[in-house]
């Protein structure tokens, strides 16, 4: 058992390292040009947002529409700090402060609102995100509706990769722990979870706070990569977009969220050339996917690296069959 775990961990590491190096090579050879790099950054940020919202909505079953609010807190905090302290240290401080502040707001908002269920919670979190947006429009330090410009860029592919992998690992490890089990039990049946002795309020708030923390990180990365912020970026539609990724990928599937984030960003990049028709096509695609896969691309299943194993196995067995056939043919001739 231990050996399997070890080889799996090694395989995971190799897979991640390969992904990183290949994309890094593609960037340095300019095959992924500046324009595609924006897509790449958007993919990473969306992965963080979707995976963290999936923790709240897909795994713990709490319907939240406030993710853009948490993201904007991270974004503005990081922007304000790096504008005054344009060093690498300032950037880290900004990411950290943004994430912690978002988590703190998540805690303050979550404690009373998580008593609500389903659509009521959705409306409450939606209201919260709107309040945050309006506060940012009216604050001086955020430069109001005009927004902040010239935020120093510290984020490159390396940092995007590290933060994305980090948050995905944080959340998937949390879900594998007994705390994660408790969260899933709450989604499955809150009353039964209560009866089992699970502290349901505690776990709902914990999931909400971790989700907000990660959304704060995503926001900070956004601010530092796209060096321009205004409150309207983080409107209702942004929250809905994240929710679309989560539902499309499958509620309760981390790998689903990752696939969907990549897929949707690539689709919308390719649709860019269609200008007005773009949103129509995008919506149409979503409708088609939801009709044929109502449970999302992945349902609640996960893809692990053992899939590659199986593929490899099939390939190998296929090859050896082919070899045998060739040999027997030769024999006949």
């Amino acid at each position, binding site marked *: 058992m231990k050996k399997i775990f070890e080889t799996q961990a090694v395989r995971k590491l190799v897979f991640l390292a390969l992904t990183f190096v290949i994309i890094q090579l593609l960037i340095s050879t300019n095959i992924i040009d500046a324009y595609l790099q924006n897509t790449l950054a958007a993919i990473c940020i969306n992965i963080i947002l979707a995976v963290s919202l999936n923790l709240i909505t897909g795994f713990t079953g709490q319907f939240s529409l406030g993710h853009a609010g948490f993201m904007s807190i991270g974004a503005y905090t990081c922007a304000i700090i790096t504008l005054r302290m344009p060093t690498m240290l300032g950037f880290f401080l900004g990411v950290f402060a943004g994430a912690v502040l978002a988590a703190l707001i998540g805690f303050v908002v979550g404690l009373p609102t998580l008593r609500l269920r389903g659509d009521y919670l959705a409306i409450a979190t939606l209201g919260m995100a709107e309040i945050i947006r309006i506060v940012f429009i009216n604050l001086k330090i955020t430069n109001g509706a005009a927004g902040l410009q010239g935020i120093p860029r510290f984020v490159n592919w390396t940092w995007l990769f590290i933060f994305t992998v980090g948050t995905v690992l944080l959340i998937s490890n949390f879900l594998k722990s*007994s705390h994660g*089990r*408790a969260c*899933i*039990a709450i989604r*499955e*049946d809150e*009353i*039964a*979870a*209560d*009866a*089992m*002795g*699970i*502290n349901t309020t505690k776990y709902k708030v914990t999931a909400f706070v971790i989700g907000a923390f990660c959304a704060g990180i995503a926001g900070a990365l956004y601010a530092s990569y796209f060096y321009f912020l205004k409150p309207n970026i983080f409107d209702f539609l942004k929250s809905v977009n994240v929710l679309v990724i989560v539902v499309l990928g499958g509620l*309760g599937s981390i790998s689903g969220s990752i696939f969907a984030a990549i897929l949707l960003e690539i689709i919308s990049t390719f649709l860019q050339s269609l200008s007005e028709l773009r949103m129509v096509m995008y919506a149409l695609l979503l409708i088609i996917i939801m009709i044929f896969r109502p449970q999302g691309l992945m349902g*609640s299943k996960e893809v692990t690296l053992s899939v590659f194993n199986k593929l490899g196995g099939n390939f190998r067995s296929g090859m050896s069959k082919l070899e045998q056939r060739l040999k027997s043919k030769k024999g006949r001739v």
Partner: protein
Amino acid sequence: MLEIKNIDVHYGVIHVLKGISFTVNDGEIVTLIGANGAGKTTTLRTISGLKKPTSGTILLDGEDITQVSPRERVKRGISHAPEGRRIFPDMTVLENLELGAYLRKDKEEIAKDLKKVYERFPILYDRKKQLAGTLSGGEQQMLAIGRALMSRPRILFLDEPSMGLAPFLVQEIFNIIKDINTTGTTILLVEQNASMALQIAHRAYVLETGSIVLSGTGAELMQSDEIKKAYLGG
């Protein structure tokens, strides 16, 4: 072991339990019977801490647990198999059972109890990797009881275990309940199926719109004319 004193419960303005009192002694099967809306489920939910009473006290082994969290009550030996089974449908049978032992840390003892549950319900062993939502009604009820047993309770609350089951399954479930009791677990049983409940119960209380109107041993109540007329169809 369990003593309920003058419990009042309100849902909003509706007065559901009107000062009910009763006791459950160590090793007994006690049943609460009564019509729909009499307050049976509310009584169980109040004792397991899922619903707060407006007044009254609940004593477990002489200690006041009225203000104690549901979690703490599970730790002290109360286990509740709620109405309508309420298993975790998208989890496997094994995961459901493991969650029943959520508050326990003694891994070896948990493994022993898991084995006992599988011995009692062999079908759950056969289906341990299956999603609980795909089980039949009877199997789900067995899972709900098995899950409740995984916290190694001293007193087990069963809320309408016969609900929606075929008659031969009802008989089986009641045999199992009796058997759980003989192995040392006290049972508080809520049932609409009064005749079955009275057959296995040591003592029984009859609830009517939030008050206890009758009590006695199971055999006594079986013979009572009022009960026969109202609940046993005689």
